[in-house]
């Protein structure tokens, strides 16, 4: 597929107590975002405190895994030799998760087929011990 780099050269996140739920949820098909158990606000990037009410009763929760492309860019620059270009980098606004965006790649279509407002669904891709939440158009 033009424009999508699936090489193992992607930098991989180091797992820790804060980010493990997010990066490993894809193993069971779950997109997990931290949520405050007191005010129900969402917290991303995941941290052990709620940025809305300062509660520390926060926990990862499963969200819909669908969303809308808020904005995007088509990357043409080869930042390292093994990189396949062009590919789409997008910022996705998640359904039901107000105030949270994910930077991701839009896969499964030509780069010219992507636009702001397009509806997308998560598709996880395993890289070692993490599952990257990539998105494809619905």
């Amino acid at each position, binding site marked *: 597929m033009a424009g999508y*780099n699936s090489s193992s050269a*992607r*930098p*991989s*996140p*180091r797992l*820790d107590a804060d*980010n493990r739920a997010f990066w490993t949820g894809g193993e069971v098909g779950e997109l997990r975002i931290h949520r405050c158990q007191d005010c129900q606000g969402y917290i*991303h*990037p995941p941290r052990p405190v709620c940025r809305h009410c300062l509660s520390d009763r926060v926990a990862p929760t499963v969200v819909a895994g669908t969303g809308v492309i*808020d*904005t*995007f*860019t*088509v*990357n*043409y*620059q080869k*930042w390292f030799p093994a*990189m396949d270009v*062009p*590919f789409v*980098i*997008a*910022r996705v606004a998640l359904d039901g998760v107000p*105030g*949270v*965006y*994910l*930077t*991701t*790649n839009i896969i499964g279509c030509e780069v010219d087929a992507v*636009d*702001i407002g397009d509806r997308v669904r998560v598709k996880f891709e395993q*890289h070692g011990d*993490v599952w*990257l939440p*990539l998105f494809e158009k619905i």
Partner: protein
Amino acid sequence: MAATLAPQAYITGVGQSEVGIKLTRHPLLLTVDAVREALGEAGLTIGQIDGVSTYPGRVAAMPGFSPVGADELVDALGIRATWYAGGGEITSQLGAVVAAVGAIRSGQARHVICFRTVYEAAAIARPDEYPVQRRDKTEGNSQWFSPFNALSAVTWTAQYAMRHVKKYGLTREQLAQIALTDRAHALLNPRALVREPLTIDQYLSARMISSPLCLYDCDRFTDASTVLIVSAGDALDEVSCTPIRIAAMAGTVERLSWDQAEWMACYATGKDLWKRTDYKPSDVDTAQLYDGFSFQALAWIESLGFCGVGEGGKFIEGGRRIALDGELPLNTFGGQLGAGRLHGFGFAHEAVTQLRGNGGARQIKGEPRVAVAASGGGPLATALLLTRD
């Protein structure tokens, strides 16, 4: 004890080293070159300096990005400092000046050297001397971008630019005016890195880096040092140059994230700046606005109220308004796209140069009294309002 009025802060000496790529002169010596020029202009000696401020301090993991720390300069030049600071956790590059003003106004220092030294082109050319520390895993803020190969700030800035393209109809012809204006102004600046004209045809046929930003929308690694000396208002009898007052300052951190913030930080910063002064956007004689990527300058034009949000493309269309003889001369030294990636400090350096009438071939007409200098713009932003009283 009677309350005393805190002294105003002024930029007195300004200095700059040679500007180039793959320079071999030691980065500390480039810094000293800029210090010497600034001291000479201000009529100060190193013994009168009692503070040092820099951005972002020495960064061991990226030696070219910031090869000289504040403490290193203090020690190397024998400065008897009563205050110093250097760090990246501040509202972008000119935050180092904001910090110095705090020290001045609270009486902790009287003359502070603020500097930004960059050595990225030289460091990449000489990796044995300037090794980059490679890590096998990504962590912290970069983990939310680099696994998706969003590896450069250009891919993050491009997404804000794309929103302007789709929502407000920003065209490539409009955006090109930032790069074209920068390069036209750089021709008149003997220290500019790129001293070749750029045509609209060259711009439109350039390769894309990250849409809608092409090659000419991006600055490139540069080796240089820029110095600004910030002095206390009650120490101006010690300087021989025309002091330029720092009339207002504003800064914002918008979640220190390129994807969780609805807006770039410059928008809040621009609004805040005008809350802290009686001056208005219409009083500004020249704007020196961060343009590491061209779109940042356009966003700053909107943020500072020179036009409405979304109207930046129309404002710069044709380039006449932002030309040397336009209503808002922009980046008269060439900006970072023309003069080199001086990383934020070049904008304040040029604002002072213009307000003093020292611009030479690129001096704007009339007697400019008010200038804005801005750095950053994405998740971090700083704006300074500078006046010749």
